[in-house]
């Protein structure tokens, strides 16, 4: 055999060992493309890290709260004039009746510890305390009327600006222009910490508690709206999974191929791309104005989110049904199974991991959705009562986690801003858990053919 390449002029013109200009160019463009890819990933990671750092940096302080521990004398002449400990009579004393009691208790506690108090009025000193303190004392007294007449130690919330001082959010300079608190309050706060009357610890109420009004951000928690989200997810799961799976099985296994099914198919894909706020308008018109379901109810929120989630579930279910090889169906039919038996005994179980994954991802999407909830009255000062039962959970006004975060971010007090970030941490926690479950399901049960 003659060597073709070396047949002319002795030396090879094109050698694989010698890189020529064209190869060089091709190699360079490949290297460039790889560099772009790495750059893109690095940029993405950079964004992710910035996002996580800012979320954690802003949000973690929300999980801690400053408390003031003082003994409060529950004077009988103020709280139960009749002396009968009759609850109905005692309820007549409102939080405004408890307020001076708490304020005076704070003055007395400072005096006892020998902390200097430059404020002439107990009311001015009490700016250290959250305005929730009288309500907190009143709840305890009404739960246990026999405490009246005794001096009881209470662990009360400190005001949001005092709390902000210990978290580094509020500085003495800024307070010079703030009518809500003076620098003198901070001196007292420092002395109280030294005396062990004030401490900043983990605050379970942020995770479990209810929303609070604008004047007391220190009391607000995301617990009730978490329950609201839970009830909405129950509605979404109970409606969208069976409806979605039934629709997909029919379309995939039974429906004839004609222009009608084509039309339906196209429309399902279209619905998946419809902005979620449109579902909110639809929900307002259909569920509230036409069907007369209650406003702000998790049931209505769940129904709206069901509409939003259905296309996602149908598309993923159809994809996983399609992925089951036809040989399974043929084998089932071949040994005499009916069409329905072949679907329910053989195809559906094999498609189940894919269906569940799609469902969980759909639910995670619905969990993070705020826009449709705006229109059905779930954003505002709503999540202030824990539901007291299953029916109340579905029907009583409530908010949802993302809606609560949005509401907090809108409020004037900077302490709410911190709580909004804290809420984001919790919401992200839920979303990541759901996505991890979806990934695990897929990894463990998915079969490939």
């Amino acid at each position, binding site marked *: 055999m003659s060597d073709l390449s070396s047949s002319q002029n002795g030396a090879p013109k094109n050698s694989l060992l010698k890189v020529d200009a064209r190869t060089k160019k091709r190699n360079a463009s490949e290297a460039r493309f790889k560099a772009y890819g790495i750059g893109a990933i690095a940029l993405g990671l950079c964004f992710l890290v910035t996002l996580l750092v800012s979320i954690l940096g802003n949000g973690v302080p929300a999980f801690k709260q400053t408390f003031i521990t003082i003994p409060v004398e529950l004077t009988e002449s103020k709280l139960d004039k009749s002396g009968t400990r009759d609850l109905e009579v005692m*309820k007549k004393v*409102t*939080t*405004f009746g408890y307020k001076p009691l708490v304020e005076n208790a704070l003055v007395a506690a400072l005096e006892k510890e020998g902390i200097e108090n430059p404020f002439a009025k107990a009311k001015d000193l009490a700016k250290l305390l959250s*305005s929730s303190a009288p*309500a907190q004392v*009143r*709840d305890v007294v009404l739960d246990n009327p026999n405490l009246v007449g005794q001096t009881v130690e209470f662990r009360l919330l400190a005001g949001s600006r005092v709390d902000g001082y210990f978290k580094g959010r*509020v*500085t003495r300079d*800024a307070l010079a*222009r*703030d*009518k*809500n608190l003076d620098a003198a309050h901070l001196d007292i706060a420092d002395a109280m910490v030294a005396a062990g009357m004030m401490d900043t610890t983990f605050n379970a109420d942020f995770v479990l508690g209810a929303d*609070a*009004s*604008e*004047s*007391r951000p220190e009391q607000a928690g995301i617990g009730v709206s978490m329950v609201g989200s839970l009830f909405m997810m129950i*509605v979404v799961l*109970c*409606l969208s*999974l*069976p*409806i979605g*799976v*039934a629709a997909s099985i029919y379309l995939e296994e039974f429906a004839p191929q004609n222009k009608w099914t084509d039309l339906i198919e196209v429309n399902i894909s279209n619905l998946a791309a419809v902005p979620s706020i449109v579902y909110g308008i639809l929900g307002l018109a259909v569920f*509230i*104005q036409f*069907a*007369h*379901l*209650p*406003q*702000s109810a998790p*049931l209505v929120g769940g129904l709206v989110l069901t509409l939003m989630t259905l296309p996602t579930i149908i598309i993923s279910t159809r994809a996983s049904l399609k992925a089951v090889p036809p040989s399974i169906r043929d084998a089932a039919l071949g040994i005499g199974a009916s069409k329905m038996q072949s679907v*329910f005994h053989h195809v559906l179980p094999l498609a189940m991991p894919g269906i569940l994954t799609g469902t969980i991802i759909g639910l995670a999407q619905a969990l993070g959705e705020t826009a449709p909830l705006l229109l059905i*009255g779930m*954003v*505002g*000062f*709503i999540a*202030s*009562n824990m539901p007291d039962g299953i*029916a109340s959970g*579905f*029907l*009583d*006004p409530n908010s949802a986690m993302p809606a609560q975060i949005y509401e907090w*971010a*809108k*409020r*004037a*007090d*900077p302490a709410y801003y911190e709580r909004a970030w804290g809420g984001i941490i919790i919401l992200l926690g839920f979303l990541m858990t759901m996505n991890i479950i979806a990934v695990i399901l897929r990894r463990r049960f998915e079969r490939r053919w």
Partner: protein
Amino acid sequence: MSLVKLTASALAISAMTVTAASARDQVQVAGSSTVLPYASIVAEAFGENFDFPTPVVESGGSSAGLKRFCEGLGENTIDIANASRAIKDTEVAACAEAGVTDIVEVRIGYDGIVFASDINGNSFEFTQEDWYKALAAEIVVDGEVVANPNTTWDQVNPAFPAQPIMAFIPGTKHGTREVFDEKVILVGCEDSGDFEKFVEVKGDEDAAEDACMSIRTDGLSVDIDGDYTETLARIDSNKDGLGVFGLAFYENNTDKLQVATMAGVVPTTESIAEGTYPVSRPLYFYIKAAHIGVIPGLQEFADFFVSDDMAGPDGPLAEYGLVSDPALVETQDAVASATVMMK
């Protein structure tokens, strides 16, 4: 099989809920985002002190709230609309058309509108005329009506620094915008003497007022449709910006904002109560008289809202930034007897 069961239970749930959608037992409130903080403070205290559940308070703006208020009567409509301006005749008419004929108007107090800029920026001492000359679409220059040529504050008033004009004002769905237009821009237009020229050019006074109050659309004035937090965020990212805020919002954010004087007066609850600060407005809420007695707690909530404990000069609302109404006693009587608005 399990699929059949799931479907059946889902159907059962939806059937149950339709029947269970019975009497509502909490008050539903919606409307002005300026009134929202006050309404939420009252709602919270109401829930603590009464055996009724805490009312639900939503925001969305005065106009949006009144629109929902006028949708009709019944449990799936709101009971109370908050507004940072008085209800308009057109809205009363729209209400009447939908069957909402008896409306109780409640004035809860006054609120100041303040002009604030970034804490580290320049300080300003404004007059209404300055704002008119900075923001109007057309002004009079050398006796001619021309498109507003001013782009920096020193062109408006030589006493100001050469800072570019960048204003963030409330969008038209907010009641605050209306007060801003009438008490700042229109007053400034009249003070500057441009009003007469507009009357001359446009024919009559109504057209002249409209001309005065039309705001420039060349990007130097930005309508903010969201809440004050959005305005604050805009000023945070654009240090030259000036924003329009409610007094209570400013007082909660004194670490980021500095307030400008208006006509030589610093906005405080005192100067607003005395009436020396020129840009203030009453805050209202409106009750559907037909819902009183049907929705449990509605009458009690309204009474509690205007009680001395809440809305009085030492109450929590005043502490948050509301300027207490000197005529509160009359309001209390009107609420107690559910006095319906005259049409």
